[in-house]
Each structure stands twice: as structure tokens, then as C-alpha cells.
């Protein structure tokens, strides 16, 4: 298609339109060169002279009283500098947690899940530390394990946490329920009478691991003022800081945190891992201490995606209109609360999906159990719900004899739809359009594996295992669409902070952007530089390392950073621009009348009028003056959901994606090959199109993993994790991953900076149910559980 954009100077110049490398361009990552040369310093690459290695001893059982801990042999080991247990914690603050401080830094009297930290060792070699930790003798007296809703809420159930006094304990029906959120709207009983068809379903979503590749790690360096400098991979520096400092008994300004290279996150770094442990060992020994988990430990060292049971009932009239929905969603939060309350909020408020249903009766709960703690993972709450409601949509369409996509389009929400929480959707919600686009994409050709030389097994189910040459292989196609909230919801003060500096360096205007945003791979640093170029009209932008010397940026999660910290950077740049123009007016106002009369912009290193006339070089305006300011920025406030009706304007923004999956299934061996997984998503405004597509493809692939291979398997009798390794917990390889065509829609949300929409999570939602639907389409099986395993397809 020809480029229809005008060239040259248009009659009306808008800020940023004339500066290269601004928003909307696919500029390249500022950390790209370091990352391809191996020089980028990840948290596990940190090194300090004289540093020690820390090791954590973890519980070998899921639920037990600790009878005794004997550290004497470990302490006597040559090369060991310290062994710490609960008894060594320096203050009265011995727990941490994101919302509820229920997680012990080190186990006290009891362990509540397999792999809970019990003791710490610091030694001069990692192997010495490991061997010393193995010499610590812990005597456990095992307790019965809580593993599901029935065992958690039985009349004689052992309480995972006795004496709860958190802010949810007053309204939950049982102390083993972290949080419960009902949502009631309309009259389900009455609406049900209008239904010509009713569909019920029970769905099981397995426990997924974030499986970021960079293991939890960091380096704590004790400082002369009695404080500590911590270099760590995390998603939210200031949230860590708030939890770390009280345990150490230090004021927050004596715990100086710097983000080191983060090897992926996906929610798994929202909770603390080794941060406090490394600081405790460093402060105790007076030496720098590095902790690096191996993959085995990583599976125990972070929270996972909540496994869930979902019970749904939907009704529809014979002309295809949804009448009502009832559901109960039971999320297993495991031993500690982590993000469970927020996951419950999302699961309940998004349980209807992107559809119009006026009459609903919804309940979501999260359990305390002795399973591994679960918390944040990409799309949380919404992912589990989407898997279930999309299966329901297919069942309803089939029962009505309607096309599955057309049935969805008929019931699709749009701008103006009222959510079950009573919140109106006040920006574009192009659900029907996304479905139309995904269906209109050309289907991949049949039997692509066939050639004149026979079958290329690499493209068949079973792949290089050479299990089929096409016999027993059938194709299926499936569709799904989802809705995710963007940003922190339910009244949370979800702000960010940006510090922007503008000055002349070596004869050029240079902007420096300093935020505490955790760059975890998503490309926030790229976008911040683009925003600064657009708003300040400069080429040179320096991204300052993220640390706690600037205000909080909030978390790199909930698809929020481009919206919120991007918004903060934009806001700070606008204020800096005003200051630069003030300086210009002061110094040069008499040179040209336009200084006083025209709207002035910064473009290409110059001050220009909105008519494109150049008034001055920024270099001459600033000379040796430096403009710098730090400002907090907030999106529109949200409200808590009512605890009995679930009503409230709880969400900031909604994000939508739709998928079409094409699969081929070897029905004899139960093997699945996903041939193509196409996605259409509305992104509001693609600030960096290359990165947007990368996010969509990455999220899509994590959804594919859940559909056909990913699950942490927990023994139901012992609550012990059975597969904590990449040998046993499988994530998609490049052979498992199909082509992922992406169709990006840009419908501006007028409430958001540049009209953008948070995009990171939505593609993780609909990917899984689309693949499931395609496998059902190929096999005719019901398949109500993730992941689909061979035995589910062969029936044996």
C-alpha cells in the first residue's frame, strides 16, 4: 500500500510530529547491543570482590510443625560465614507480603508448603554453601495437608493460618478462604425463564509457572552507614523496599535498591524472593552476599498462576441472545496470600467475558491451602475465567446450531456496555470487529507437511519423534476472545513517578529520563526514550538506571507500565518543555513576536511555532541551564467492589484480544501440533509497533503452553511438587510454536496517554481457549481441563 502520509512541513505542526525516533516508530531497544554481546549485567551476573554466596534451606514437606533445627554442623563447616534461622531475625517484623503480611521470612514453628525457606547459609563458594545447608538438621512433625476446596472448608479443617486479623478475614466464610467476591446484577432466576437453551460446565485450569529464564538472584552489599545496597531483578523496586526495610530494622533510605538486568518476569517477580535473605546475610557477615537460585529452586522460589475450578451456567434464547450467567470460580492460592485478593477481584469482575449479559450471579474465592503459593502471572484471574467462558460459548453456539464466531459477535460488548460490576465501558471495545478480523484471515493450507519427497515429520504432531507420517492426523479450528483489565484496580492508588532532565551536552540538547520502572524485557525503556523525543523534540535521550533514588513507578505488571509510567514520563516531559519555553521567552522573547503569540513546540532540537517557523535552537535557549523535575502521575481513580454486590467502578481500562487456532491432532497417539495461532488485538495506539507485536506473540505462546503442555503437578496426598525442572515442566520450544500472524487495531482510548491501551496480558487469555476449541473441533472431545495431555485424547 502506498504511504499516504504527507511529507515536508504541514501547515499545522503538532508536538513531536517532526522529530525522528518518537512514538509510533519501531525504534530499537537501547539495551539491545549489550544484550546481544553478552555484556548486559543480569542480576545473576553481579560480582563483588570478597563476596559470599548465600544458600536457602527449604522445607522437604508441605505442612508440618518444626520440632527442632540443628545448625551446628553447618556452622562448623570450613568456608561458612553464617547460618541464620528465624531466631536470628533482627526485629519484631518477621513476615512480609504484597497485601497481607502473612509470609514468614524464615519459617517459625511451622512450614505451610513444600519448599518454604527455613534457614540461610553464607559461604565463600556456592558449593560449600549448598553442602553446608544440607547439613542443617530439621525435625518435622507432619500435619494433614489442605489441598482443595473440600479439605480447606471441611468442618474439622486444619487452619493454614490461625488467628487471622487481615482486612479480608472479617468477610470470608471460612478462615481458609483468603478473599471472596460475589457479583450480583439483575435477576438470574427471572432471566433463566427466558432461556431456550441452558449450558452447564465444570472446568479445571492447571497451575502454570512463569518460567522466566533468568533465575531469581541478586547481590546485597553492606555499606559503611549500616545500610545495604541491593542489586536485584524485580518487578517493583518500591514495593520490595517497603517489605524489606522493616524486617532489617532499617529506614527505607538505608536500603538502596538498583534494578539489575531482569531475565523475564511475567508476574513471578512481584513477590519477594531472595531480597531479604541476601540482605540479612550481608548485614550479619559484613560482606557482600550473592544469591542465585538454580532452576529447581526457582520453581519453589516464586508464586505460580492460580489453578482453578470453574463452574458455569449460561442460558440463551433460540435467536442466540445470552440470557444469564451463573458461575463459581475457586482459585487455589496456596499457603500464602500473595496477590490472591486481586486475582479474586479480576476473576469475578471479568468472569462474564467480553459479552453483554445483564443478569448474573457470580462468586469467586481464593483458598488458603498447603499447595505452592500462587499469585501474579500475566493475565491473572482473567486467564482462568476466559478458558471457561469461551468453552461455554462454543457449547451454546453448537446447541443453538449457530456459527461459533457469529454467536459471539451477536453477544459482543461494545463501548457503552455496562459491566456486571455496573461500570460502563467508556472507550472502544471492538470485540465484534476483532472476531470478524480473525475469522477473515486466510487459513493456512492443509497438509503443509506433505511434499514430493514425502512427509516432513518436523511439521507433524510428534515432530522429530517420527511418530506419524500423516496417518490418523485431523485438523481443527477454534476461536476465542477475551477481556483483561489494565492497571491496578479496586481503588488502589496506582501512580507512577518520572524525573526528566534537559540540558546541553557537547553542543546537543539531551534529555535524561529517570524512573523506577522495572524493565523486565517488555521494552519500557525503548518507549520512554520515544516519548521524550516526541515531547521534547530531541534526538539524544539517556535512560537512567532504575533505582529507589526516584519515586515509585508502580509494578511492571497488569499491562500498566506504558500507560502509567509512560504517562508519567509524558507528563514530566510536558512540564520540562514548558520550562524550556519559559526560559526562551525570558531570554529571547523580544527577538520575535511569535515568542509571545504563537503556540510553541520543541522539534528536531529547535523551538518552532505551530506553523513550522523556527525561532531558536534549544541549545541557545538553554546554554548552561539545566531543567529538571520529578513528578507523580495518576490515571483516573477507581473504586473498590462492594463486598456483597460486587458493584463499583473498579477498573481503569479494558483490553481485548481474539485468537484463531489451527491444530492438527494425531488421534491415535494423542499428539497435538498447533499449525497457526493468529491474533487480532486492539492496542489503542502502538507506541512501538515492533515491540507491540513481540508482546502479542509472546503472550500468545504462553497461552499455547497452558493449552497443551504446561502444568506444575502437585501430589494431592502430600502437596509436594513433582516436576520442578525444565525436564519435567515443559514450556513451548520453537518447534512447538506455530506462526503467529498478528492484526493490530488502533482505536484510541481518549482517557489514556496517546490513546494507548495496555497490551501485555490480553493475548495470554484467548490463546488457550482457542487452542482447546481447535482440539475439540478436531476430535469431538469435550476437554474441560488444561493442559490437554495425550491420554485425554486417546481415552487411555
Amino acid at each position, binding site marked *: 500500500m502506498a504511504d499516504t502520509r504527507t511529507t515536508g512541513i504541514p501547515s499545522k505542526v503538532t508536538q513531536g510530529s517532526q522529530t525522528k525516533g518518537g512514538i509510533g516508530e519501531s525504534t530499537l531497544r537501547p539495551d539491545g547491543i549489550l544484550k546481544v554481546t553478552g555484556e548486559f549485567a543480569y542480576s545473576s551476573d553481579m560480582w563483588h570482590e570478597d563476596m559470599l554466596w548465600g544458600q536457602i534451606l527449604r522445607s522437604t514437606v508441605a505442612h508440618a510443625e518444626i520440632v527442632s533445627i540443628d545448625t551446628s554442623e553447618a556452622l562448623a563447616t570450613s568456608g561458612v560465614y553464617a547460618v541464620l534461622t528465624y531466631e536470628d531475625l533482627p526485629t519484631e517484623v518477621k513476615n512480609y507480603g504484597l497485601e497481607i503480611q502473612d509470609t514468614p521470612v524464615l519459617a517459625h514453628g511451622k512450614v505451610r508448603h513444600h519448599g518454604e525457606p527455613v534457614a540461610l547459609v553464607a559461604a565463600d563458594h556456592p558449593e560449600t554453601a549448598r553442602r553446608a545447608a544440607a547439613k542443617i538438621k530439621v525435625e518435622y512433625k507432619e500435619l494433614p495437608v489442605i489441598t482443595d476446596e473440600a479439605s480447606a472448608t471441611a468442618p474439622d479443617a486444619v487452619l493454614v493460618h490461625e488467628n487471622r486479623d487481615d482486612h479480608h478475614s472479617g468477610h470470608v466464610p471460612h478462615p481458609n478462604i483468603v478473599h471472596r467476591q460475589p457479583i450480583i446484577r439483575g435477576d438470574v432466576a427471572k432471566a433463566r425463564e427466558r432461556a431456550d437453551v441452558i449450558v452447564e460446565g465444570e472446568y479445571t485450569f492447571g497451575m502454570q509457572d512463569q518460567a522466566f529464564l533468568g533465575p531469581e538472584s541478586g547481590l546485597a552489599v553492606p555499606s559503611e552507614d549500616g545500610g545495604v545496597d541491593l542489586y536485584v531483578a524485580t518487578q517493583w523496586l518500591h514495593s520490595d523496599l517497603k517489605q524489606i526495610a522493616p524486617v532489617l530494622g532499617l529506614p527505607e533510605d538505608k536500603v538502596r535498591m538498583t534494578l539489575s538486568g531482569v531475565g523475564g518476569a511475567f508476574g513471578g517477580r512481584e513477590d519477594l524472593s531472595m531480597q531479604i535473605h541476601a540482605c540479612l546475610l550481608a548485614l550479619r557477615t559484613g560482606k557482600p552476599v550473592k544469591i542465585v537460585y538454580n532452576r529447581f529452586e526457582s520453581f519453589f522460589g516464586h508464586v505460580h498462576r492460580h489453578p482453578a475450578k470453574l463452574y458455569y451456567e449460561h442460558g440463551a434464547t433460540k435467536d442466540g441472545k445470552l440470557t444469564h450467567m451463573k458461575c463459581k470460580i475457586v482459585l487455589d492460592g496456596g499457603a500464602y496470600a500473595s496477590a490472591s485478593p486481586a486475582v479474586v477481584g479480576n476473576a469475578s469482575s471479568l468472569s462474564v467475558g467480553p459479552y453483554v449479559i445483564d443478569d448474573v450471579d457470580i462468586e469467586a474465592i481464593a483458598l488458603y491451602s498447603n499447595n505452592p503459593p500462587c499469585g501474579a502471572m500475566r493475565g491473572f484471574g482473567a486467564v482462568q475465567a476466559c478458558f471457561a467462558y469461551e468453552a461455554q460459548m462454543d457449547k451454546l453456539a453448537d446447541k443453538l446450531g449457530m456459527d461459533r464466531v457469529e454467536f459471539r459477535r451477536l453477544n459482543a460488548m461494545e463501548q457503552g456496555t455496562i459491566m456486571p460490576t455496573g461500570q460502563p465501558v467508556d472507550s472502544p471495545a471492538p470485540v465484534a470487529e476483532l472476531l470478524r478480523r480473525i475469522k477473515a484471515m486466510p487459513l493456512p493450507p492443509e497438509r503443509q507437511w506433505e511434499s514430493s519427497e514425502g512427509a516432513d515429520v518436523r511439521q507433524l504432531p510428534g515432530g522429530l519423534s517420527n511418530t506419524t507420517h500423516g496417518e490418523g492426523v485431523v485438523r481443527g479450528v477454534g476461536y476465542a476472545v477475551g477481556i483483561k483489565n489494565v492497571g491496578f484496580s479496586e481503588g488502589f492508588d496506582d501512580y507512577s513517578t518520572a524525573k526528566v532532565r534537559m540540558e546541553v551536552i557537547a553542543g546537543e540538547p539531551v534529555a535524561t529520563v529517570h524512573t523506577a520502572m522495572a524493565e523486565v524485557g517488555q521494552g519500557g525503556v525503548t518507549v520512554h526514550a520515544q516519548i521524550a523525543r516526541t515531547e521534547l523534540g530531541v534526538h539524544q535521550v539517556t535512560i537512567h538506571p532504575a533505582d529507589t533514588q526516584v519515586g515509585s513507578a508502580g509494578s511492571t505488571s497488569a499491562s500498566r507500565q506504558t500507560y502509567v509510567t509512560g504517562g508519567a514520563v509524558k507528563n514530566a516531559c510536558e512540564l520540562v518543555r514548558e520550562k524550556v519555553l519559559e526560559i526562551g521567552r525570558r531570554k529571547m522573547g523580544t527577538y520575535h513576536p511569535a515568542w509571545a503569540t504563537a503556540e510553541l513546540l520543541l522539534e528536531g532540537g529547535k523551538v518552532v511555532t505551530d506553523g513550522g517557523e523556527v525561532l531558536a535552537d534549544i541549545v541557545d535557549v538553554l546554554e548552561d541551564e539545566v531543567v529538571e523535575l520529578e513528578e507523580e502521575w495518576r490515571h483516573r481513580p477507581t473504586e473498590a467492589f462492594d463486598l456483597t454486590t460486587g458493584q463499583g467502578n473498579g477498573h481503569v481500562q479494558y483490553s481485548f484480544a481474539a485468537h484463531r487456532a489451527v491444530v492438527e491432532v494425531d488421534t491415535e497417539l494423542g499428539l497435538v501440533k498447533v499449525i497457526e495461532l493468529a491474533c487480532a488485538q486492539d492496542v489503542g495506539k502502538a507506541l512501538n509497533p515492533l515491540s507491540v507485536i513481540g508482546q502479542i506473540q509472546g503472550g500468545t505462546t504462553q497461552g499455547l503452553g497452558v493449552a497443551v503442555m504446561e502444568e506444575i503437578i502437585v501430589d494431592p496426598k502430600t502437596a509436594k511438587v513433582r516436576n520442578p525442572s525444565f525436564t519435567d515442566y515443559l514450556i513451548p*520450544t520453537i518447534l512447538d510454536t506455530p506462526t503467529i500472524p498478528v492484526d493490530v487495531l488502533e482505536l484510541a482510548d481518549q482517557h489514556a496517554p496517546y490513546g494507548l491501551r495496555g497490551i501485555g496480558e490480553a493475548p495470554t487469555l484467548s490463546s488457550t481457549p482457542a487452542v482447546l476449541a481447535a482440539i475439540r473441533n478436531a476430535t469431538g472431545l469435550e476437554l474441560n481441563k488444561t493442559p490437554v495431555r495425550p491420554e485425554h485424547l486417546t481415552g487411555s
Partner: protein
Amino acid sequence: MRVNFTVNGRKQEADDVWEGESLLYVLRERMGLPGSKNACEQGECGSCTVRLDGVPVCSCLVAAGQVEGREVVTVEGLADFAKNRSCGGHEGGACGTSLQEAQGWSAKGTDSQTGEGGISPHATLAPIQQAFIDAGAVQCGFCTPGLLVASDELLERNPNPSDADIREALSGNLCRCTGYEKIMDAVRLAAARQSEPEGV
């Protein structure tokens, strides 16, 4: 135990190597070469892929003692390795920056679209490294070093790989961020650039 071997063309000696120590540990903790990554340490993820006498291996699975007298190339040496290969494998002076190359580079100036000096091809990157940046194949980047070493080896033995060839060659390298599409693009891009006639 003492181990003598060559890393990125340089003779190295590691003393007091413990019997259980992996090549990965020696590279990261003794040689100051942390580019090879430690994502699983059991040969499943490929993040620690290096060339051992030319063969791509997971350095976490190679005992340090096994590399005695052998040649190792890591991501840190990939640019030089690729450069030596492109001028016929001669080590040393013959492969310096040509005058023409140097002039071409300086003429591009220091415009900083990426915030630190280069939308223009970086002078010291291997073609596969530049292709990973250009194609958007790098997100968190933790899998990148291993993928670069594996991709470079693929293009060395198969300059014009099919998509199925690329997927097969890279099937031992896990990436959690990208969904692999941009990695496919990067390898295709490097292959296409490699097949362009000199000077175009």
C-alpha cells in the same frame, strides 16, 4: 585440577578447578565471561550454548576438565569469530576494519535512535547479532546469547535454511518472551543479508 584451553581465541588457564565444576561455571565465575547464561543448568534451555571445537554444546553439561586443550567460543567472542570466518578463517591482522568500512561507519555519525549510539549497523557485531536487534528478537535477552551461538552455527553450515531447518536447529533453546516469531525473522534476515553480494 588445572585446565588449559582456548576461549574466544585466547589461551586461558584455570587453577583449582573442582571435579564437579562445569564449563559454564568456569566461564562465568572464573573467566569473567557471564554472557553464557545459567537458566536451567541441566541442558534443557540452551541459554549457556557455546561452541566447543566448533560444535554447539550446553556448557552447563560439559565438565570443565573435558575442555582441556580445546577451543571454546562464547557469545562474547561471536563477533570476532564471525569476522574471522567471513575473511577466510585467518586469525590476526588480515581481518581488520577496512578503510572503506571505517569511512562508511564514521559517515553515519552518532545519531542515537536507540538511545546509545546506533540504528546504523554496529561496527563490532556479528551479522546474526545485528539481525537479532533489528528484527526485535531481543526482549529480556536471557536466552539471546545461546540463541545467537546456535543460530550462527546454523548459518555457517546451512546459509539458506528453510523455516523447518531453523526450528529444528534452535529447538534446544528456550525463549519465554518472544514466541519465537521474531527469532525466526532474525535468522531469516541474517541469512538474507549474508546471501547479498558483497558491497550491496
